Protein backbone atom coordinates (compact mmCIF):
# COMPACT_ATOMS: atom_id res chain seq x y z
CA UNK A 1 0.00 0.00 0.00
CA UNK A 2 2.41 2.66 -1.16
CA UNK A 3 1.36 5.99 -2.54
CA UNK A 4 3.34 7.41 -5.39
CA UNK A 5 5.00 10.54 -4.18
CA UNK A 6 3.21 12.61 -6.81
CA UNK A 7 -0.17 11.38 -5.63
CA UNK A 8 -2.79 14.05 -6.00
CA UNK A 9 -3.86 13.80 -2.35
CA UNK A 10 -0.91 16.09 -1.69
CA UNK A 11 -2.13 18.42 -4.40
CA UNK A 12 -5.56 18.75 -2.86
CA UNK A 13 -4.25 19.21 0.66
CA UNK A 14 -1.08 21.21 0.39
CA UNK A 15 -0.47 21.99 -3.24
CA UNK A 16 2.92 20.48 -3.95
CA UNK A 17 5.27 17.61 -3.32
CA UNK A 18 8.34 18.83 -1.49
CA UNK A 19 11.69 17.37 -2.52
CA UNK A 20 13.49 15.23 0.09
CA UNK A 21 16.30 17.46 1.23
CA UNK A 22 19.65 16.11 2.42
CA UNK A 23 19.34 17.87 5.75
CA UNK A 24 16.56 18.89 8.15
CA UNK A 25 16.58 20.37 11.66
CA UNK A 26 14.34 17.53 12.80
CA UNK A 27 12.94 14.36 11.29
CA UNK A 28 9.67 12.92 12.51
CA UNK A 29 9.07 9.24 11.80
CA UNK A 30 5.37 8.58 11.33
CA UNK A 31 2.77 10.69 9.53
CA UNK A 32 0.10 9.98 12.09
CA UNK A 33 -1.56 12.44 14.42
CA UNK A 34 1.26 12.64 16.97
CA UNK A 35 3.91 13.18 14.31
CA UNK A 36 1.88 15.73 12.36
CA UNK A 37 0.86 17.61 15.52
CA UNK A 38 4.47 17.79 16.69
CA UNK A 39 5.56 19.06 13.27
CA UNK A 40 2.78 21.65 13.25
CA UNK A 41 3.69 22.99 16.69
CA UNK A 42 7.42 22.98 15.94
CA UNK A 43 6.69 25.42 13.15
CA UNK A 44 3.94 27.38 14.88
CA UNK A 45 5.44 27.87 18.34
CA UNK A 46 9.17 27.45 17.82
CA UNK A 47 9.87 28.76 14.35
CA UNK A 48 11.24 25.39 13.24
CA UNK A 49 9.99 24.69 9.74
CA UNK A 50 13.02 22.82 8.37
CA UNK A 51 11.30 19.66 9.54
CA UNK A 52 10.43 16.47 7.64
CA UNK A 53 7.62 14.06 8.45
CA UNK A 54 8.50 10.65 6.99
CA UNK A 55 5.55 8.34 6.40
CA UNK A 56 5.98 4.83 5.00
CA UNK A 57 2.43 4.60 3.64
CA UNK A 58 0.16 7.65 3.65
CA UNK A 59 -0.77 10.11 6.38
CA UNK A 60 -3.37 8.70 8.76
CA UNK A 61 -2.96 5.12 7.55
CA UNK A 62 -2.39 3.73 11.05
CA UNK A 63 -4.14 4.29 14.34
CA UNK A 64 -4.96 7.89 13.40
CA UNK A 65 -7.61 6.74 10.97
CA UNK A 66 -8.62 3.54 12.75
CA UNK A 67 -9.60 4.72 16.22
CA UNK A 68 -13.24 5.23 17.22
CA UNK A 69 -12.79 9.01 17.42
CA UNK A 70 -13.82 9.32 21.07
CA UNK A 71 -12.31 12.10 23.17
CA UNK A 72 -12.54 12.56 26.93
CA UNK A 73 -10.53 13.81 29.88
CA UNK A 74 -11.78 11.63 32.76
CA UNK A 75 -8.61 9.59 33.18
CA UNK A 76 -7.73 8.28 36.61
CA UNK A 77 -4.29 9.40 37.76
CA UNK A 78 -2.91 12.78 38.71
CA UNK A 79 -0.16 12.49 36.08
CA UNK A 80 -2.59 11.84 33.23
CA UNK A 81 -5.50 14.12 34.13
CA UNK A 82 -3.87 17.53 33.40
CA UNK A 83 -2.63 16.30 30.03
CA UNK A 84 -6.02 15.03 28.88
CA UNK A 85 -7.81 18.09 30.26
CA UNK A 86 -5.71 20.40 28.12
CA UNK A 87 -6.08 18.00 25.18
CA UNK A 88 -9.86 18.25 25.34
CA UNK A 89 -9.74 22.04 25.47
CA UNK A 90 -7.62 22.19 22.32
CA UNK A 91 -10.17 20.83 19.80
CA UNK A 92 -12.20 24.05 19.39
CA UNK A 93 -9.02 26.13 19.45
CA UNK A 94 -7.37 24.09 16.70
CA UNK A 95 -10.54 24.08 14.62
CA UNK A 96 -10.23 27.86 14.39
CA UNK A 97 -6.46 27.94 14.16
CA UNK A 98 -6.26 25.38 11.34
CA UNK A 99 -9.33 26.82 9.62
CA UNK A 100 -10.45 23.23 9.17
CA UNK A 101 -13.67 21.80 10.60
CA UNK A 102 -12.59 19.01 12.94
CA UNK A 103 -16.26 18.28 13.68
CA UNK A 104 -15.80 18.26 17.44
CA UNK A 105 -19.12 17.09 18.86
CA UNK A 106 -19.01 17.44 22.66
CA UNK A 107 -21.95 15.13 23.29
CA UNK A 108 -20.59 13.80 26.60
CA UNK A 109 -19.54 10.31 27.66
CA UNK A 110 -21.49 7.94 29.87
CA UNK A 111 -19.49 5.06 31.32
CA UNK A 112 -21.67 2.33 32.83
CA UNK A 113 -21.05 0.48 36.09
CA UNK A 114 -22.45 -3.02 36.45
CA UNK A 115 -21.47 -3.74 40.06
CA UNK A 116 -20.96 -2.04 43.43
CA UNK A 117 -17.21 -2.46 42.98
CA UNK A 118 -17.26 -0.73 39.61
CA UNK A 119 -19.27 2.13 41.08
CA UNK A 120 -16.73 2.51 43.90
CA UNK A 121 -13.89 2.68 41.40
CA UNK A 122 -15.82 5.34 39.50
CA UNK A 123 -16.29 7.34 42.70
CA UNK A 124 -12.52 7.66 42.94
CA UNK A 125 -12.15 8.44 39.25
CA UNK A 126 -14.83 11.15 39.42
CA UNK A 127 -13.26 12.72 42.51
CA UNK A 128 -9.83 12.74 40.86
CA UNK A 129 -11.21 14.44 37.77
CA UNK A 130 -13.07 17.04 39.84
CA UNK A 131 -9.88 17.99 41.71
CA UNK A 132 -8.45 19.03 38.32
CA UNK A 133 -11.59 20.96 37.41
CA UNK A 134 -12.79 18.36 34.93
CA UNK A 135 -16.55 17.93 34.79
CA UNK A 136 -17.39 14.40 35.83
CA UNK A 137 -20.18 13.07 38.01
CA UNK A 138 -21.77 9.86 39.23
CA UNK A 139 -25.28 9.11 38.00
CA UNK A 140 -27.84 6.51 39.08
CA UNK A 141 -29.57 4.11 36.67
CA UNK A 142 -32.58 6.41 36.21
CA UNK A 143 -30.29 9.29 35.29
CA UNK A 144 -28.51 6.99 32.84
CA UNK A 145 -31.89 6.25 31.28
CA UNK A 146 -32.68 9.97 31.07
CA UNK A 147 -29.39 10.57 29.28
CA UNK A 148 -29.85 7.61 26.92
CA UNK A 149 -33.49 6.47 26.76
CA UNK A 150 -32.54 3.40 24.71
CA UNK A 151 -30.59 1.88 27.63
CA UNK A 152 -32.02 -1.20 29.31
CA UNK A 153 -31.77 -0.46 33.05
CA UNK A 154 -33.95 -3.43 34.07
CA UNK A 155 -32.69 -6.61 35.72
CA UNK A 156 -32.87 -8.46 32.38
CA UNK A 157 -29.24 -8.05 31.18
CA UNK A 158 -26.66 -10.47 32.54
CA UNK A 159 -24.88 -7.48 34.11
CA UNK A 160 -27.59 -4.97 35.07
CA UNK A 161 -26.69 -1.27 35.21
CA UNK A 162 -25.83 -0.07 38.74
CA UNK A 163 -25.04 3.49 37.76
CA UNK A 164 -22.56 5.39 35.72
CA UNK A 165 -19.97 8.10 35.36
CA UNK A 166 -21.09 11.02 33.21
CA UNK A 167 -18.47 13.28 31.65
CA UNK A 168 -20.27 16.09 29.77
CA UNK A 169 -17.32 17.80 27.98
CA UNK A 170 -16.14 14.66 26.13
CA UNK A 171 -17.46 13.47 22.81
CA UNK A 172 -16.26 12.63 19.32
CA UNK A 173 -14.04 14.30 16.73
CA UNK A 174 -13.73 13.46 13.05
CA UNK A 175 -10.32 11.77 13.09
CA UNK A 176 -9.58 12.09 9.34
CA UNK A 177 -10.27 15.79 9.54
CA UNK A 178 -7.64 16.13 12.26
CA UNK A 179 -5.09 14.32 10.07
CA UNK A 180 -5.88 16.50 7.06
CA UNK A 181 -6.14 19.72 9.04
CA UNK A 182 -2.80 19.21 10.77
CA UNK A 183 -1.06 18.12 7.54
CA UNK A 184 -2.39 21.13 5.68
CA UNK A 185 -1.52 23.46 8.58
CA UNK A 186 1.99 22.05 8.91
CA UNK A 187 2.66 22.14 5.16
CA UNK A 188 1.49 25.74 5.00
CA UNK A 189 4.15 26.58 7.57
CA UNK A 190 6.84 24.93 5.47
CA UNK A 191 6.99 21.42 6.95
CA UNK A 192 7.88 18.75 4.37
CA UNK A 193 5.58 15.73 4.49
CA UNK A 194 7.03 12.76 2.61
CA UNK A 195 4.51 9.99 2.06
CA UNK A 196 5.45 6.63 0.60
CA UNK A 197 8.91 7.02 2.13
CA UNK A 198 10.32 4.37 4.43
CA UNK A 199 12.89 4.90 7.16
CA UNK A 200 15.52 2.18 6.80
CA UNK A 201 18.02 3.22 9.47
CA UNK A 202 19.00 5.83 12.02
CA UNK A 203 22.60 7.04 12.16
CA UNK A 204 24.22 7.56 15.57
CA UNK A 205 27.71 8.89 16.30
CA UNK A 206 29.12 9.38 19.82
CA UNK A 207 25.67 8.68 21.30
CA UNK A 208 24.14 11.47 19.22
CA UNK A 209 21.67 11.30 16.33
CA UNK A 210 23.38 12.31 13.09
CA UNK A 211 21.16 11.04 10.29
CA UNK A 212 18.08 9.16 9.16
CA UNK A 213 18.31 6.80 6.20
CA UNK A 214 15.28 6.39 3.97
CA UNK A 215 14.57 4.48 0.79
CA UNK A 216 14.62 7.85 -1.00
CA UNK A 217 17.96 8.97 0.39
CA UNK A 218 19.88 9.96 3.48
CA UNK A 219 18.90 12.92 5.67
CA UNK A 220 21.38 14.61 8.00
CA UNK A 221 19.69 15.71 11.21
CA UNK A 222 20.43 15.99 14.91
CA UNK A 223 16.89 15.31 16.10
CA UNK A 224 14.55 12.45 15.34
CA UNK A 225 11.15 11.70 16.83
CA UNK A 226 9.87 8.14 16.88
CA UNK A 227 6.11 8.60 16.45
CA UNK A 228 5.56 5.40 14.51
CA UNK A 229 2.59 4.22 16.58
CA UNK A 230 2.22 0.45 16.42
CA UNK A 231 5.64 0.14 14.80
CA UNK A 232 7.50 2.40 17.25
CA UNK A 233 8.79 -0.39 19.50
CA UNK A 234 9.94 -2.57 16.59
CA UNK A 235 11.65 0.43 15.02
CA UNK A 236 13.36 1.45 18.26
CA UNK A 237 14.72 -2.05 18.79
CA UNK A 238 15.70 -2.82 15.20
CA UNK A 239 17.31 0.52 14.39
CA UNK A 240 18.78 1.58 17.73
CA UNK A 241 18.72 -1.52 19.92
CA UNK A 242 16.56 0.31 22.46
CA UNK A 243 13.84 -2.00 23.74
CA UNK A 244 10.56 -0.58 24.93
CA UNK A 245 8.02 -2.02 27.41
CA UNK A 246 5.40 -2.39 24.70
CA UNK A 247 3.17 -5.14 23.34
CA UNK A 248 1.47 -4.53 20.02
CA UNK A 249 -2.08 -5.83 19.80
CA UNK A 250 -4.68 -5.50 17.07
CA UNK A 251 -7.74 -3.67 18.33
CA UNK A 252 -11.00 -4.05 16.42
CA UNK A 253 -13.99 -1.81 15.82
CA UNK A 254 -17.03 -1.76 13.57
CA UNK A 255 -19.96 0.36 12.40
CA UNK A 256 -23.61 -0.54 11.81
CA UNK A 257 -25.85 0.59 9.02
CA UNK A 258 -26.98 4.24 9.48
CA UNK A 259 -29.93 4.74 11.82
CA UNK A 260 -32.08 7.65 12.89
CA UNK A 261 -30.61 9.49 15.91
CA UNK A 262 -30.96 7.39 19.06
CA UNK A 263 -27.66 7.71 20.87
CA UNK A 264 -26.69 11.27 21.68
CA UNK A 265 -23.84 10.43 24.06
CA UNK A 266 -20.85 8.13 23.89
CA UNK A 267 -21.70 5.09 26.02
CA UNK A 268 -19.17 2.61 27.32
CA UNK A 269 -19.09 -0.40 29.58
CA UNK A 270 -16.02 -2.01 31.08
CA UNK A 271 -17.87 -5.16 32.08
CA UNK A 272 -19.09 -5.77 28.53
CA UNK A 273 -15.77 -4.64 26.99
CA UNK A 274 -17.72 -2.39 24.72
CA UNK A 275 -18.25 1.22 23.80
CA UNK A 276 -20.57 2.79 21.27
CA UNK A 277 -21.43 6.15 19.81
CA UNK A 278 -23.58 7.31 16.94
CA UNK A 279 -21.64 9.11 14.24
CA UNK A 280 -22.97 12.22 12.55
CA UNK A 281 -23.80 9.95 9.58
CA UNK A 282 -26.06 7.85 11.84
CA UNK A 283 -23.92 4.73 12.08
CA UNK A 284 -23.35 3.19 15.49
CA UNK A 285 -19.57 2.98 15.82
CA UNK A 286 -18.63 0.38 18.36
CA UNK A 287 -15.52 -1.31 19.69
CA UNK A 288 -13.27 -2.54 20.95
CA UNK A 289 -11.92 -5.99 21.37
CA UNK A 290 -8.34 -7.20 21.24
CA UNK A 291 -7.17 -10.70 20.64
CA UNK A 292 -4.76 -10.94 23.57
CA UNK A 293 -1.57 -11.87 21.75
CA UNK A 294 0.85 -9.50 20.02
CA UNK A 295 0.51 -9.23 16.25
CA UNK A 296 0.78 -6.77 13.37
CA UNK A 297 -2.06 -8.17 11.29
CA UNK A 298 -4.75 -5.45 11.58
CA UNK A 299 -7.08 -8.44 11.23
CA UNK A 300 -10.68 -8.53 12.32
CA UNK A 301 -12.04 -11.79 13.67
CA UNK A 302 -15.40 -13.60 13.51
CA UNK A 303 -15.20 -14.26 17.22
CA UNK A 304 -15.25 -10.56 17.86
CA UNK A 305 -18.22 -9.76 15.61
CA UNK A 306 -20.29 -12.19 17.69
CA UNK A 307 -18.97 -10.81 20.97
CA UNK A 308 -19.67 -7.24 19.93
CA UNK A 309 -23.22 -7.98 18.78
CA UNK A 310 -23.96 -9.75 22.05
CA UNK A 311 -22.40 -7.07 24.22
CA UNK A 312 -23.90 -3.97 22.62
CA UNK A 313 -27.42 -5.45 22.41
CA UNK A 314 -27.35 -6.35 26.11
CA UNK A 315 -27.50 -2.73 27.23
CA UNK A 316 -28.94 -1.28 23.98
CA UNK A 317 -31.50 -3.99 23.06
CA UNK A 318 -33.07 -1.79 20.37
CA UNK A 319 -30.01 -2.53 18.20
CA UNK A 320 -30.98 -6.20 17.82
CA UNK A 321 -31.31 -7.04 14.14
CA UNK A 322 -29.29 -4.02 13.01
CA UNK A 323 -26.57 -4.98 10.55
CA UNK A 324 -22.88 -4.28 10.79
CA UNK A 325 -21.56 -2.59 7.66
CA UNK A 326 -17.83 -2.50 8.20
CA UNK A 327 -15.28 -3.93 10.59
CA UNK A 328 -11.61 -3.03 10.84
CA UNK A 329 -8.58 -3.36 13.04
CA UNK A 330 -5.69 -1.16 14.03
CA UNK A 331 -2.50 -1.58 16.00
CA UNK A 332 -2.37 -0.53 19.65
CA UNK A 333 1.02 -0.21 21.36
CA UNK A 334 0.21 -1.21 24.93
CA UNK A 335 2.39 -0.49 27.95
CA UNK A 336 2.13 -2.38 31.26
CA UNK A 337 0.57 0.64 33.02
CA UNK A 338 -1.63 1.90 30.18
CA UNK A 339 0.22 5.22 30.14
CA UNK A 340 2.36 6.44 27.24
CA UNK A 341 6.13 6.75 26.97
CA UNK A 342 7.23 10.28 26.20
CA UNK A 343 10.94 10.64 26.50
CA UNK A 344 14.04 12.03 24.87
CA UNK A 345 17.82 12.55 24.80
CA UNK A 346 18.52 9.35 26.74
CA UNK A 347 20.44 7.16 26.05
CA UNK A 348 20.97 8.85 22.66
CA UNK A 349 21.03 12.62 22.40
CA UNK A 350 18.51 13.82 19.86
CA UNK A 351 16.38 10.65 19.97
CA UNK A 352 12.84 11.40 21.11
CA UNK A 353 10.02 8.91 21.62
CA UNK A 354 6.27 9.44 21.75
CA UNK A 355 4.60 6.05 21.83
CA UNK A 356 2.93 3.41 23.98
CA UNK A 357 -0.44 5.12 23.76
CA UNK A 358 -2.47 1.92 23.62
CA UNK A 359 -5.95 3.18 22.93
CA UNK A 360 -5.42 6.76 24.09
CA UNK A 361 -3.41 8.07 21.15
CA UNK A 362 -6.23 9.89 19.41
CA UNK A 363 -7.54 12.02 22.26
CA UNK A 364 -4.04 13.04 23.31
CA UNK A 365 -2.48 13.94 19.96
CA UNK A 366 -2.78 17.73 20.02
CA UNK A 367 -1.53 18.31 23.54
CA UNK A 368 1.35 15.86 23.18
CA UNK A 369 2.35 17.43 19.88
CA UNK A 370 2.38 20.83 21.53
CA UNK A 371 4.63 19.79 24.42
CA UNK A 372 6.77 17.39 22.39
CA UNK A 373 7.53 20.26 20.02
CA UNK A 374 8.72 22.31 22.99
CA UNK A 375 10.80 19.37 24.22
CA UNK A 376 12.45 18.97 20.80
CA UNK A 377 12.97 22.68 20.29
CA UNK A 378 14.77 23.45 23.54
CA UNK A 379 15.93 20.01 24.65
CA UNK A 380 14.37 20.09 28.11
CA UNK A 381 11.36 18.01 28.99
CA UNK A 382 8.29 20.12 29.93
CA UNK A 383 6.97 19.32 33.43
CA UNK A 384 3.65 18.02 32.14
CA UNK A 385 5.48 15.26 30.19
CA UNK A 386 8.00 14.30 32.88
CA UNK A 387 5.90 11.56 34.54
CA UNK A 388 5.86 9.62 31.26
CA UNK A 389 9.57 8.86 31.33
CA UNK A 390 10.84 5.54 30.00
CA UNK A 391 12.82 5.18 33.24
CA UNK A 392 9.70 4.71 35.38
CA UNK A 393 9.67 1.00 34.61
CA UNK A 394 13.09 0.30 36.12
CA UNK A 395 12.24 2.63 39.01
CA UNK A 396 9.11 0.53 39.70
CA UNK A 397 6.95 3.64 39.43
CA UNK A 398 4.26 2.40 37.10
CA UNK A 399 1.11 4.51 36.95
CA UNK A 400 -2.31 3.40 38.11
CA UNK A 401 -4.01 4.09 34.82
CA UNK A 402 -4.82 0.42 34.20
CA UNK A 403 -7.80 0.74 36.51
CA UNK A 404 -9.38 3.36 34.25
CA UNK A 405 -10.18 1.08 31.35
CA UNK A 406 -10.94 -2.39 30.22
CA UNK A 407 -7.82 -4.23 31.15
CA UNK A 408 -6.59 -6.06 28.09
CA UNK A 409 -2.98 -6.84 27.49
CA UNK A 410 -0.93 -9.96 27.03
CA UNK A 411 0.18 -9.42 30.62
CA UNK A 412 -3.15 -10.26 32.22
Amino acid at each position, binding site marked *: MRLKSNSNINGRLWGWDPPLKSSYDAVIIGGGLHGLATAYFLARHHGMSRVAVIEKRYIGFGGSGRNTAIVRANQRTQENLPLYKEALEMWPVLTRELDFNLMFYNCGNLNLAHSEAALKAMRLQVASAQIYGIQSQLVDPEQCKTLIPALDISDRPRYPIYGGMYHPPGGIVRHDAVVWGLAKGAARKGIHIHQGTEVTGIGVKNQKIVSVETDKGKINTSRVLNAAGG*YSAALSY*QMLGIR*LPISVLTIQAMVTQPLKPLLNHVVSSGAYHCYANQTLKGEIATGAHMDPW*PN*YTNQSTA*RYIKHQAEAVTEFLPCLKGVKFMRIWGGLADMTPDMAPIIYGNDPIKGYYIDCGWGYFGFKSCLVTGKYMAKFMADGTCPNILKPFTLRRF*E*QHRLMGETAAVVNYSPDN
Partner: protein
Amino acid sequence: MAFTITCPVCGIRRGYEFRFGGEDKGPMPPEESLASETWCEYVHMNNCIAGIQKEWWFHRDGCGSWFTIYRDTTTNQQVENR
Protein backbone atom coordinates in the same frame (compact mmCIF):
# COMPACT_ATOMS: atom_id res chain seq x y z
CA MET B 1 -7.33 -18.35 7.99
CA ALA B 2 -8.04 -19.46 11.45
CA PHE B 3 -5.29 -19.05 13.99
CA THR B 4 -4.08 -22.39 15.30
CA ILE B 5 -1.28 -23.44 17.61
CA THR B 6 0.35 -26.82 17.81
CA CYS B 7 0.48 -28.00 21.41
CA PRO B 8 3.25 -30.55 22.02
CA VAL B 9 0.76 -32.75 23.85
CA CYS B 10 -2.62 -32.13 22.16
CA GLY B 11 -1.56 -31.33 18.59
CA ILE B 12 -3.09 -28.61 16.40
CA ARG B 13 -5.77 -26.69 18.31
CA ARG B 14 -7.68 -23.42 17.99
CA GLY B 15 -5.63 -20.40 19.05
CA TYR B 16 -8.30 -19.25 21.49
CA GLU B 17 -7.63 -22.29 23.71
CA PHE B 18 -4.25 -20.83 24.56
CA ARG B 19 -2.96 -17.91 26.54
CA PHE B 20 0.01 -15.93 25.28
CA GLY B 21 2.94 -16.14 27.70
CA GLY B 22 5.30 -13.47 26.41
CA GLU B 23 8.33 -13.26 24.17
CA ASP B 24 11.03 -15.82 24.88
CA LYS B 25 13.65 -13.91 26.87
CA GLY B 26 15.82 -16.81 27.99
CA PRO B 27 16.29 -17.87 31.60
CA MET B 28 15.25 -15.62 34.47
CA PRO B 29 18.20 -13.56 35.72
CA PRO B 30 19.62 -14.80 39.05
CA GLU B 31 18.10 -13.00 42.00
CA GLU B 32 21.36 -12.49 43.81
CA SER B 33 22.58 -8.90 43.43
CA LEU B 34 19.96 -8.36 40.73
CA ALA B 35 20.03 -4.81 39.38
CA SER B 36 16.75 -3.01 38.92
CA GLU B 37 17.58 -2.38 35.24
CA THR B 38 18.24 -6.08 34.58
CA TRP B 39 14.95 -7.06 36.18
CA CYS B 40 13.11 -4.38 34.19
CA GLU B 41 14.70 -5.63 30.94
CA TYR B 42 13.55 -9.15 31.73
CA VAL B 43 10.05 -8.32 32.91
CA HIS B 44 8.92 -5.38 30.80
CA MET B 45 11.06 -4.87 27.71
CA ASN B 46 10.10 -6.48 24.42
CA ASN B 47 11.67 -6.77 20.98
CA CYS B 48 8.24 -6.45 19.31
CA ILE B 49 9.48 -8.11 16.14
CA ALA B 50 7.28 -7.66 13.09
CA GLY B 51 8.11 -11.09 11.69
CA ILE B 52 9.05 -14.45 13.17
CA GLN B 53 9.60 -14.55 16.92
CA LYS B 54 10.06 -17.23 19.55
CA GLU B 55 7.42 -16.97 22.24
CA TRP B 56 5.75 -18.78 25.14
CA TRP B 57 2.19 -20.13 25.16
CA PHE B 58 0.10 -21.87 27.80
CA HIS B 59 -2.59 -24.41 26.87
CA ARG B 60 -5.14 -22.89 29.24
CA ASP B 61 -8.23 -24.72 28.01
CA GLY B 62 -6.39 -27.97 27.44
CA CYS B 63 -3.55 -29.95 28.96
CA GLY B 64 -1.99 -27.01 30.83
CA SER B 65 1.41 -27.28 29.11
CA TRP B 66 3.78 -24.32 28.79
CA PHE B 67 5.85 -24.41 25.59
CA THR B 68 7.55 -22.19 23.02
CA ILE B 69 6.70 -21.83 19.36
CA TYR B 70 7.86 -19.68 16.47
CA ARG B 71 5.14 -17.48 15.03
CA ASP B 72 5.08 -14.82 12.33
CA THR B 73 3.53 -11.81 14.06
CA THR B 74 2.56 -10.27 10.72
CA THR B 75 0.37 -13.25 9.71
CA ASN B 76 -0.38 -15.08 13.00
CA GLN B 77 0.89 -18.28 11.38
CA GLN B 78 2.96 -20.66 13.45
CA VAL B 79 6.11 -21.66 11.60
CA GLU B 80 8.28 -24.75 11.88
CA ASN B 81 10.41 -24.88 15.00
CA ARG B 82 13.97 -24.06 14.11
